[in-house]
């Protein structure tokens, strides 16, 4: 029973359905694992031990009554970006310390309706701004593969929790790579769905035109199952797609014959760690050997993704974060005047990276600068999107590395913000284009640190992306590796 925490969601479900284990067994095993490793990993901001046990007992009762909900009794972790009813939600920021929302995010509601057991809220970069989880307003999270290294970010807590066996799967959010990059650095499958495929209602906004919830799991099938549960139209989110959600699991076939895979030359450039490039090239060969056709494509505006992203995302964030003013919830530092109260509250509550981005965004939107910065960035964003449109006229999916490097050391990049921003260099353009992309394990470097393969598909074509990933996963064993924790 002691390795129950290592199961995939699908394996756990078949054992639950066969009556071999109960959700209570499973949940207790995970809580024990958390007890054992959490001090070293620091994945969670809050573990909901009692509540999880209660949900597990309830799931067992429902299963006994014939309930077949798709995630019934499966212990799952949630990034603290998601609003959870009655459970403190901070988005990794001191400014929200003590804030207890009166409502669940739509995707949380859907997980609960599907029977998931919520284990806790995971650590993250404050307001999802970061690529290492070192910008958490509370403490950094450690990579289970090497505790001296970062798990990636901003959904680093969710990734570390799943990698360390502290949850069977987790939800993160991806604004510019915040699910895919930590999945890559922690050896997991991480999915960024099409923008609008999942509801953002209750997801604490960083950059509204980019934010998307997405699953982190150990296998493609697990990730597809989670996405199946959380995807779909939500009348509370005006940007969510009304289109029906296809059956992702039914579409999983280990067959890529005749499939055209786009390989963008812009993703194989200097600055990519040689181990990473080799692993990705090997993976492409595997797919080619399985019958897929490799086609070189070009995404000429890729080099502008970083500056465009760092204008649009901070601009939106500067407005999104204005509500944290000490008036209605969270931290308040009193002042002699209302302006002083705002300044003291926000000065004390926000960390340096959040303040940096609010200032960047405020500047980009200011009178006299709007046209040169924000508007220009939006125009280039359109060009980045048309790069993909053109490429997808020739190919079915586009494949490249997720992150240019494997997990870096804690503190290694904190001194220079730009160096930290470069960690997301390959995950920004898909987000700007609003298309789906996932990362899955495709190898490891000399130190045994995981490497991620990124597969992107046209908007609303998650099925295609899952098929390729599933085929590759079936042909390799990288997904079976576990960290030496």
């Amino acid at each position, binding site marked *: 029973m002691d390795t129950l925490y290592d199961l995939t969601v699908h394996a756990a479900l078949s054992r639950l359905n066969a009556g071999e284990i109960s959700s209570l067994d499973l949940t207790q095993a995970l809580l024990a694992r958390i007890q054992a490793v959490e001090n070293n990993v620091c994945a969670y901001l809050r573990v909901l031990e009692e509540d999880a046990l209660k949900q597990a007992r309830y799931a067992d009762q429902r299963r006994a009554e014939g309930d077949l909900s798709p995630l019934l009794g499966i212990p799952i972790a949630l990034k603290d970006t998601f609003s959870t009813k009655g459970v403190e939600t901070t988005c990794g920021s001191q400014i929200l310390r003590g804030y207890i929302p009166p409502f669940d995010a739509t995707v949380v509601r859907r997980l609960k309706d599907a029977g998931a057991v919520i284990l806790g809220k995971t650590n993250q970069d404050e307001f999802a701004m970061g690529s290492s989880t070192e910008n958490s307003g509370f403490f950094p999270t450690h990579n289970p593969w090497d505790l001296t290294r970062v798990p990636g970010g901003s959904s680093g807590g969710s990734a570390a929790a799943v990698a360390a066996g502290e949850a069977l799967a987790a939800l993160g959010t991806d604004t510019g790579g915040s699910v895919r990059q930590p999945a890559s650095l922690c050896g997991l499958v991480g999915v960024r769905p099409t923008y609008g495929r999942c509801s953002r*209602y209750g997801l604490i*906004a960083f*950059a509204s035109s980019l934010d998307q919830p997405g699953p982190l799991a150990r296998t493609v099938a697990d990730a597809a199952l989670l996405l199946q549960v959380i995807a779909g139209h939500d009348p509370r989110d005006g940007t969510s797609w009304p289109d029906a959600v296809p059956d992702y699991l039914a579409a999983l076939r280990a067959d890529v014959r005749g499939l055209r895979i786009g390989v963008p030359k812009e993703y194989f450039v200097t600055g990519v760690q040689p181990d990473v490039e080799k692993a990705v090239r090997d993976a492409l060969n595997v797919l080619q050997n399985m019958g897929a056709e490799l086609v070189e494509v070009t995404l000429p505006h890729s080099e502008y993704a970083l500056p465009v992203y760092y204008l649009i995302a901070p601009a*939106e964030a500067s*407005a999104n974060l*204005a509500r944290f003013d000490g008036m*209605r919830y969270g931290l308040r530092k009193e002042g002699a005047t209302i302006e002083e109260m705002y300044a003291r509250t926000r000065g004390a509550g926000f960390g340096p990276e959040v303040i940096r981005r609010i200032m960047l965004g405020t500047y980009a*939107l200011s009178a006299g600068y*709007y046209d040169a910065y924000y508007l220009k960035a939006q125009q280039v964003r359109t060009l980045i999107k048309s790069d993909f449109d053109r490429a997808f006229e020739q190919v079915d999916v586009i494949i490249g590395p997720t992150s240019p490097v494997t997990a870096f050391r804690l503190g290694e990049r904190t001194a220079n913000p730009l160096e930290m921003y470069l960690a997301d260099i390959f995950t920004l353009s898909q987000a700007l284009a609003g298309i789906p992309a996932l990362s899955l394990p495709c190898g490891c470097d000399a130190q045994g640190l995981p490497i991620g393969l990124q597969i992107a598909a046209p908007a609303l074509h998650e099925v295609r992306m899952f098929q390729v990933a599933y085929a590759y996963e079936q042909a390799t064993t990288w997904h079976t590796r576990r960290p030496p924790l």
Partner: protein
Amino acid sequence: MEYDAVIGLEVHAQIHTHTKMFCACHVMKDTGDIPPNTYVCPVCLALPGALPVVNRRAVEIGMLTGMALHCTINTTNVFARKSYFYPDLPKGYQISQYDLPLASDGYLDIEVDGETRRIRIRRAHLEEDTAKLYHLDDGRVQVDFNRAGAPLLEIVTEPDLHTAEEVRAYATLLRTILVYLGVNTGDMEKGMMRFEANVSVRPRGSTLFGTRVEIKNLNSFRSLTRGVEYEIQRQSALLDSGGVVEQETMGWNESAGYTYPQRSKEHAHDYRYFPEPDIPPLQLDPAWIAAVRAELPELPTERRSRLTTQYGIRAYDAELLAADRALADYFEVAVKMGQELALAPQDVANWMTGELFRLLNEANRPITGCRVTPEHLIALLFLVQKGTISASAAKKVLSEVFVTGEAPNTVVKRLGLAQMSDTDALHALVAQVLDQNPIQLAQYLEGKESVWGWFVGQVMRASQGKANPTQTREILQKSLEQRRSSQS
């Protein structure tokens, strides 16, 4: 020196949809009765993660208003964030419209001193209301979010207004139209319409624009005209004394009657407008616009002229009736019912603008829900026309019906107000009066014609007011002639 004023007006009008602009909370149609922070939810309290969703009915009402103001309805609508920090603004930005408003390039024709002037309307756009602040005596401030997120329509004119009278005429006409369209109740005391005026002056005859001063918190027609008038005088006097008008934002102190500086140009806000990423651009397809256009009622100006031409009623009455859609509807329903009974539309108008208005004013009630239905009014007028009751009795009946809602016939019977039109009975009554007053009879027969009126009065009194006056006059005339001939 003589100066001309150049004035532009911004009007914020509440929109009375069922729910708020971006959430499902109720819109308060009235202030006061509801405890603070009752109509609130995660969206209008700006809780982390909450998202706005556009209220389609508010968009329709915005379109309707744009159409009534002769605007172009823009098919692509973009909402924008207007950022500033204030405790009444929970998100730290207001969702408004900036580059692409709902409606633009319209006009309203106003009449001042018998002359018609066209006031161009630059734009009309949708936005959300702020919360309400309560300043306590101890310096603390409390916030009530009931109003936060309620839909507002901002209507902006070009600087086409030149006097306080024109400003008043424009504002009044706009109010009438908004009430006509059911945008809101037009109740100024409840903040249904709030005004901001941009005022500048220039030497008479000049075509250059002077420095603009914005006046805020003008929340009644009285404040609006007084504030504008005051500001014109202030700027003129300032220029006369060699001063310079500063570009600034002024407040209006209604009780003391003066404007005071709130914010100067150096402290002007940079609102950092940008397109609201939570709301995709709203495309108004032609079918939707056409469906809304079909909802557009006849507007007050057009209706006024139709009432005079179609029914031949006096222009003044037509204006009174057309000022309120429900009144005009009432009038037309009543006139139609009265047609078969050969009742004149002018009589209907007279009774409405006279007695009925008096009763409504006294009770401070609108025509909607009035217990005197058009059927009742027509029945009453018919009773008068056929002589069943006198005009004065009819007034009594109307005030009864106004309270009880009974049919006029029932009231007439209950109060015994039917006129005596029985010729024999009237003959007997007249004979009795003449017999009982030989002195006056002799005076009359001797040629003192003034006694005539006294006899009429006596007969009316003897009948307790029920004698039909016309018949009474006829019979009295005949009886007196008979006495005269029998005497000679």
